[in-house]
């Protein structure tokens, strides 16, 4: 029992961090935001070449042969960088949808009752059932009955699909897909929660009022301390759930990571004062994405029910 990252895992994380900093650093992210750019297929393919989607496919099938713990580290970095796109659904579909592993096919998820993200840029739809098999549908057919939603998150275009097309190809084990989707989304939330903590601490150390850095004021200090506590608790939960793949533990990880991402973004906004309320600051982008992710794959309500059922 040594619940720490291995050297290989550290190297993997550092590699993705570097890749994202180079290809989707802050300047690029803000430029895409201003341009209202859609999904960047070139970047998508680069991610694929780095193993992002094929990570958990067996080597015999052209994958990297790694597991959920490594996947969680990648998605944590993606969450920290605000990397847009249906990353989770595409990784889940790698191996099942032709071209997903290679970054040629973009796969998004359709959760009944929720708007579909990135439908315009997607090739296929993954429909995770609560127990039964997931179903793959042609995204083009789904678009025929889709109405665009003015999305809260400028990086996540949303579509309301009123009349989903008939069942496509079946993928086995929809229940597993659902929990893994929740876990990978929790990892993105964790990355965002840790990033907004860093942003708040950085600002609190630099911004001066009353002749001192605002970070020397206890009211601000305590906000930041609670942010770290939330992020670290979520980290323990997410990493452990990745190791055990236990559905109850995954529900706990999603619940705590959602809470950490949303509340940390709000506290980060508060620490930034008026600056935090501007479009210019990245804080709102984290908050908006965190709100969306909290509704994806497993809501707080669903997670709490899973966790309650586990008792006694």
């Amino acid at each position, binding site marked *: *029992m*040594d*619940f*720490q*990252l*291995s050297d290989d*895992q550290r190297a993997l994380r550092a590699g993705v961090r570097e890749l994202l900093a180079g290809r989707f650093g802050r300047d690029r992210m803000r430029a895409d935001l201003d341009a209202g750019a859609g999904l960047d297929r070139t970047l998508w393919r680069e991610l694929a070449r780095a193993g992002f989607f094929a990570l958990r496919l067996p080597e015999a099938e052209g994958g990297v042969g790694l597991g959920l*713990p490594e996947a969680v580290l990648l998605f944590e970095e993606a969450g920290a960088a605000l990397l847009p796109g249906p990353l989770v659904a595409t990784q889940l579909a790698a191996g099942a949808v032709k071209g997903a592993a290679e970054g040629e096919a973009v796969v998004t998820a359709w959760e009944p009752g929720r708007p579909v993200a990135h439908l315009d840029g997607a090739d296929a739809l993954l429909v995770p059932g609560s127990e039964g098999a997931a179903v793959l549908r042609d995204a083009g057919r789904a678009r025929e009955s889709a109405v665009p939603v003015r999305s809260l998150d400028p990086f996540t275009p949303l579509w309301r699909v009123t009349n989903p097309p008939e069942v496509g190809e079946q993928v086995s084990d929809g229940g597993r897909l659902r929990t893994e989707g929740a876990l990978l989304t929790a990892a993105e939330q964790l990355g965002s929660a840790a990033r907004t*903590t860093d942003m708040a*601490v950085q600002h*609190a*150390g630099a911004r001066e009022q009353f002749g*001192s*850095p605002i*970070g*020397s*004021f*206890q009211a*601000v*200090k*305590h906000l*930041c*301390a*609670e942010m*770290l*506590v939330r992020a*670290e*608790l*979520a*980290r*323990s*939960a997410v*990493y*452990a759930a*990745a*190791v*055990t793949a236990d559905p*109850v*533990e995954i*529900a*706990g*990880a999603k*619940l*705590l990571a959602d809470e950490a991402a949303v509340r940390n973004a709000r506290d980060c906004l508060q620490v930034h004062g008026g600056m935090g309320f501007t479009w210019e600051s990245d804080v709102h982008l984290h908050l908006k994405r965190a709100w969306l992710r909290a509704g994806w794959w497993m809501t707080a*309500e669903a*997670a*709490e*029910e*899973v*966790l*309650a*059922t*586990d*008792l*006694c």
Partner: protein
Amino acid sequence: MDLSYTPQEEEFRARLRAWLAAVLPSLAARPHPDDWPGRRAYDTAWQRMLYDAGYAGLHWPVDAGGRGATPAQHLIFLEETERAGAPYVGANFVGLLHAGPTIAAEGTAEQRARWLPPVLRGDEIWCQGFSEPDAGSDLAALRTRAVRDGDHYVVSGSKIWTSHAEVADWCELLVRTDPAAPRHRGISWLAMEMDTPGVTVRPLRTLAGSTEFAEMFLDEVRVPVANRVGAENDGWRVTMVTLSFERGTAFVGEVVACRRTLDALAAEARADGRWDDPVLRRRLGRLNAEFRALWRLTQWNVGEAGRGGVVGTGGSVFKLRYSQARQELYEAAAEVLGADSADLDREWVLDRLSSLSYTIAAGTSQIQRNIVAERLLGLPKGR
């Protein structure tokens, strides 16, 4: 990220489980909270049983009489004893969880030989004389004075909130040995025998009605210089060692106990129909996530600290969330109890009261937040 245990560790778990299953059924219930002599006898007898079975001081270093167990074995021990409903450390808390480890880390060979075996055997119990009426959160403001007289210190002053003082044999005592030095530089860490002339203990009643802590008056108490742990005036550094043990792993076993309580609450709610209330059910579900994650955070902290189980400032992160979660647990318990939440004979009612101390004792939440912000996040020191 490895959460699996080695075959040796699993074998250790199996042996411990078998031993617990054999000894626990014949154990009496722990005496009432007001019966401190009874509790002392009970807690030290349990410690003696652990000692005889080879489970005392598992995570202490071997040359301090411990077993030099791996952090994983220590965690297994905490997990299994709590899961089996074994007695808690109780009156042995200070000796086993922070005074003892401090002496093991900072004491001389003679000091270790004198003080550590009796702690492990359950022969002697310790209390903690740090806080004073005017020095709580601001511990370095302490005023109790120790003046050198030959090979003794003559100690005068007073201490407060001293848990288990009534039944303790020894006290880890912080005194000011150099009143002229800057506050943090004139402090020393002494081991004081509680029956030395000049020591008066006056029990204080807690809001739970019990007398688990006390005021201590020290009137020219003679403490041998040989009882000082660490150099003279270097007591602040030694104290930081003590506090890192206290905040690091001292509460870890309780997390498992909280999960058992949560199961019991769910069972009670199911039995009386309250489980149909989705708000209550989801509240208990959320607490399940909290305590599971706190256990994982412990594993993470211990892994990071490596051998020895000293967690350092990561312990403050744990303590902040744990003390909060524990209070929420007993608020949920009150809801499950309904009208019975006014009945002091229900164990959960007393636990609800005692949970109120968790955000105060061992450093308040405000102080922990300062520590996290300044030492972990590197924010500037303030006033």
